[in-house]
């Protein structure tokens, strides 16, 4: 059986390697997307760098009133403080000037009197540069305002606690021993991981091998090679296992590539300057523990992918032709993301153990909890064992369907 499996695996692998269209959708798309993203990102960074060198031209009116604020604005390399042009409105419209920050002429006195000072900011509508300028000015204002506030509090013998009478301190309680919080750390962008990851894994695992499995099973009927295959004494279980093995490998590579893309983007986002990295600011600090999460993720994904691919193989082996298999797969394509949504939003926190043993939902809930609230080690193992058993069941189902004449001879 192993010999047959190896022969079929090698044959299907060669077929896949020669199928440029399939290769493109399976592997080139995930490789191209970050490449295109990188080009776009580099273009944006180049534009930012160019402006940083030259500086985005802004005018500060009455700057002598708040020298501390002007110092902070000058410290920001992205801004260039220029003299007031003769016609500021025209300069703003032409893009020669990006923003005008107007400080009231009595701002220093007002601050001394502990009053509120209202500054006026006028910016142009010239592309995305004004947004960068406004963000930089706001950041300098926040910084300066903080200093002024601290001075006022000190003058009145008060501290920052006086301004915030109630403060929320948040902790994530992971179940004793293992999982989420202790693995990922409570600063991991858990909302992203716990919501999008199960959905994405469900889609990737399914889409990665779907067309490949269809081509390897119902495709045999379409190109009328099925009977030639059945005429050989080769073990039919060996044949189906060889086909499933390749689809799992292709799915794993596709999922791996997409996952690397995601990690790469998250890493890139986290390295951007303050103000751009709000979502993932803590990600880099978590890279060490991320390895453990990836191990768990792979452990959960492998039986999940085996199950989906084997199930698709069983369905496609039964189908008469591509048209019929597309009908079956259309239902599955709706069902799987539906189950992923159910797993993410429909199942409450700390569900009973039986939920982790459910097909499809169990693994997805485990993934959600791994990146979200946390999961007990026993439950993680339960989810994995259940997923592995379902995977074995799906492979047996595929092997059963592939050895039945009522399935194989449909449409032949």
């Amino acid at each position, binding site marked *: 059986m192993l010999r047959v499996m190896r022969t*079929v695996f090698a044959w299907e692998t*060669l*077929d896949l390697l020669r199928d440029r269209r399939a290769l493109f959708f399976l592997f080139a798309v995930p490789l191209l997307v970050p490449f295109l993203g990188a080009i776009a990102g580099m273009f944006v960074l180049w534009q930012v760098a160019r402006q940083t060198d030259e500086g985005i031209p802004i005018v500060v009116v009455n700057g002598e009133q708040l020298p501390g604020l002007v110092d902070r604005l000058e410290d920001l390399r992205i801004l260039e403080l220029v003299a007031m042009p003769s016609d500021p409105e025209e300069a703003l419209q032409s893009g020669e000037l990006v923003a005008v920050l107007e400080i009231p002429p009595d701002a220093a006195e007002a601050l001394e009197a502990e009053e509120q000072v209202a500054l006026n900011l006028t910016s142009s509508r010239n592309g995305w540069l004004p947004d960068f300028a406004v963000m930089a000015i706001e950041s300098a204002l926040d910084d300066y305002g903080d200093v002024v506030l601290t001075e006022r509090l000190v003058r009145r013998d008060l501290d920052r606690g006086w301004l915030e009478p109630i403060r929320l301190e948040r902790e994530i309680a992971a179940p004793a021993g293992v999982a989420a919080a202790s693995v990922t750390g409570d600063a991991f962008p858990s909302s992203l991981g716990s919501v999008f990851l199960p959905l994405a894994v469900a889609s990737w695992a399914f889409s990665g091998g779907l067309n490949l499995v269809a081509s390897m099973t119902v495709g045999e009927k379409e190109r*009328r090679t099925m009977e*030639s295959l059945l*005429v050989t*004494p080769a073990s039919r279980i060996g044949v189906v296992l060889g086909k499933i093995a390749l689809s799992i490998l292709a799915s794993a590579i596709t999922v791996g590539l997409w996952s690397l893309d995601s990690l790469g983007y998250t890493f890139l986002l986290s390295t951007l300057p303050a103000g751009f990295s709000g979502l993932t600011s803590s990600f880099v600090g978590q890279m060490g523990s991320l390895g453990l999460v990836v191990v768990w993720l792979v452990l959960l994904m492998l039986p999940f992918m085996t199950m989906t691919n084997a199930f698709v193989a069983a369905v496609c082996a039964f189908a008469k032709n591509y048209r019929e298999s597309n009908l079956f797969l259309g239902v599955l394509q709706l069902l799987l993301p539906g189950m992923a949504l159910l797993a993410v939003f429909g199942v409450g926190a700390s569900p009973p153990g039986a939920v982790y043993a459910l097909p499809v939902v169990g693994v997805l809930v485990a993934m959600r909890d791994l990146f979200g609230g946390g999961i007990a080690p026993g439950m993680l193992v339960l989810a994995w064992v259940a997923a592995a058993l379902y995977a074995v069941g799906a492979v047996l189902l595929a092997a059963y369907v592939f050895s039945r*004449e009522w399935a194989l001879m449909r449409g032949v």
Partner: protein
Amino acid sequence: MIETQELTKRFRKIVAVDGVSFTCRDGEVFGLLGPNGAGKTTLLRLIASVLEPTAGAALVDGLNARKEGARVRARVGLLVESAGLYDRFTPREHLRFYGRLQGMGGAQLEQRVEAVLEMLEMVDFADRRAEGFSAGMCRRVVLGQALVHDPPNVVLDEPTAGLDVMSARNVRALVARFREEGRCVLISTHLMDEAQRLCDRVAIVHKGRLQALGTPAELVAQTDASSLEEAFVCIVGAEQLRADLWEEQRAPRWYQFWRRLKRSLKGRSREQPDA
């Protein structure tokens, strides 16, 4: 040797093969004749253990096709009538793949692949991908797949269908060679001329049943016909009439009345223009 004993195959309500028994000896070319849908292909699939019989048995060299399917398939080379090819592979790769699935490998497989390529005159296009092959080229590759493991029993479903004159002649020569080599050759065809020239014995199959069995000369003599084709028409036509009558007698009374009414109405409408 191939032997069938009361071989029967039902697909739900349809009886595709109905109690067929015959023996095809080693060194003999045995022809299965029958109109389209007679059950010839199903019969060949049952013998090659692709399908499981509903009743009866198919024996290949004494091995039961149902119980020892893999061993039977190793001893049979089945040329499938409507088989296709993998577009992205060459004929040489096809033969290697099917040889490996037959359990062959190494130098033995390579030698056999070369021999089959030469035997079927495929050397010229042996390393060209199958995409765009003509029907005749495809047929030769599929025949090669069936013969790559050098089977003692060769089952050919419409072996010359889609082939040009020269290729068809070569296949007929090949069949004659198989007979000389002592192989058991079972051929399904609806070409009477081919059957008369190639087959030592023929069986006429109609509606899943064996209607007649014997040498072409015996069948011609039995029916007082001048050729095998006439004998075939005589046997199949008589059986068709018998089957229609039988069906009519079995039908409910209202259906018999409806058929009579329809027939008389048809007759009247044909008469009217003359009237």
